[in-house]
């Protein structure tokens, strides 16, 4: 996974915003996953079809964070989502 990638969300994955967090349900496994407010914002951006690079740019405008830290954490989160079958590389 790299910053030029986009991701797609499989049809069997549902996500709902509850408060400032997001809860994801994998209908295939019946497992639930939670995203904190930052993760929820990332999920919102990647589900809009933005590349990871564009997602980074948006987040840099919203949070006080070093670019390299954000890029690393974003890639790590997306890789974890991918490992759990919640997103696929676009």
């Amino acid at each position, binding site marked *: 996974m790299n910053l030029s990638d986009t991701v797609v969300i499989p049809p069997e994955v549902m996500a*709902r915003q509850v*408060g400032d967090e997001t809860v994801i349900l994998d209908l295939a496994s019946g497992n639930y996953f939670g995203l904190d407010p930052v993760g929820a914002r990332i999920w919102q951006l990647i589900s809009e079809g933005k590349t990871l690079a564009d997602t980074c740019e948006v987040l840099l405008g919203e949070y006080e964070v070093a670019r390299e830290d954000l890029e690393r954490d974003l890639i790590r989160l997306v890789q974890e989502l991918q490992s759990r079958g919640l997103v696929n590389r676009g």
Partner: protein
Amino acid sequence: MNSVAIAKRARKVSVTFLEHNARPQVPVAGAAFYQWVAPDGSLWTLFYRQGRDYLLRFPGLADFEVSADGCQVAAWAAPGGTSATVQHLYLNQVLPLALSRQGKLVLHASAVELADRAVAFIGESGRGKSTLAASFATGGVPFLTDDGLHLEWAGDELTVHPSHPSIRLWADSQEALVRVGAAAAPALDFTTKTRLLASPALPFCDQARPLGRVYFLGDGLARSATIERAKPAVTLINLIRNSFLLDITQQEMLAHHFEHISRIANLPIHYHLDYPRRYEDLALVREAIIRHSASGEAK
């Protein structure tokens, strides 16, 4: 063979229940797709598929066949089992699962009526849902259910539909809260809990009420009644953990359930409630709940 058609008040759905004579619990072809385990580690319920329908087996107690649409339930006591046990298991365990097949949302929760609204208490077995409901009821506050809380949307308002007019209590709670000689259902084979029937001394609300507050019961470590706002994501997971859903592998039903629960979790009505589990403190706990549930803004 007994047949009991159970029509739910104020609802457009019903479940037809048919109790047959006792029969042996013969081995079932194929593995159970799900199971409930009792707190002592023993198998409590095994879930099997039978074509599009379901078999729910309570080992040594009873078998229930639930139609795919959740509208029909047939029951057989195990050899030596009693009709009272069958009826009890049906009301407390099987009926909520059957309703879930109809797309209805049923939670492990008790509820009482305060100021024309339902106040619900949610928690795992042993947290005090029934004791709290009985404490209110013996103080004159009607209860809507002691378990199996049925929720439905009426437009933008979430309503609680009353369940069976009875409360199940352990002997110590019954002794502490209820007048001697209260009407009770027949004793059961597998539990020492008594099912106390609604009466003027244990009033029951038989009408649907809008849901006003939901309290998730803590583990009893608080020194006094404490109430804190519950975060929506935590609320959602707690609601899921405490809801009945017969078959989580049916994706359409699971998606509907998730949608329903998510909508409820976003309502500003959910709180954590903890209090010391002492009967002598229940009056103060009730007062705290009454005050809090009457307050306007969610804290």
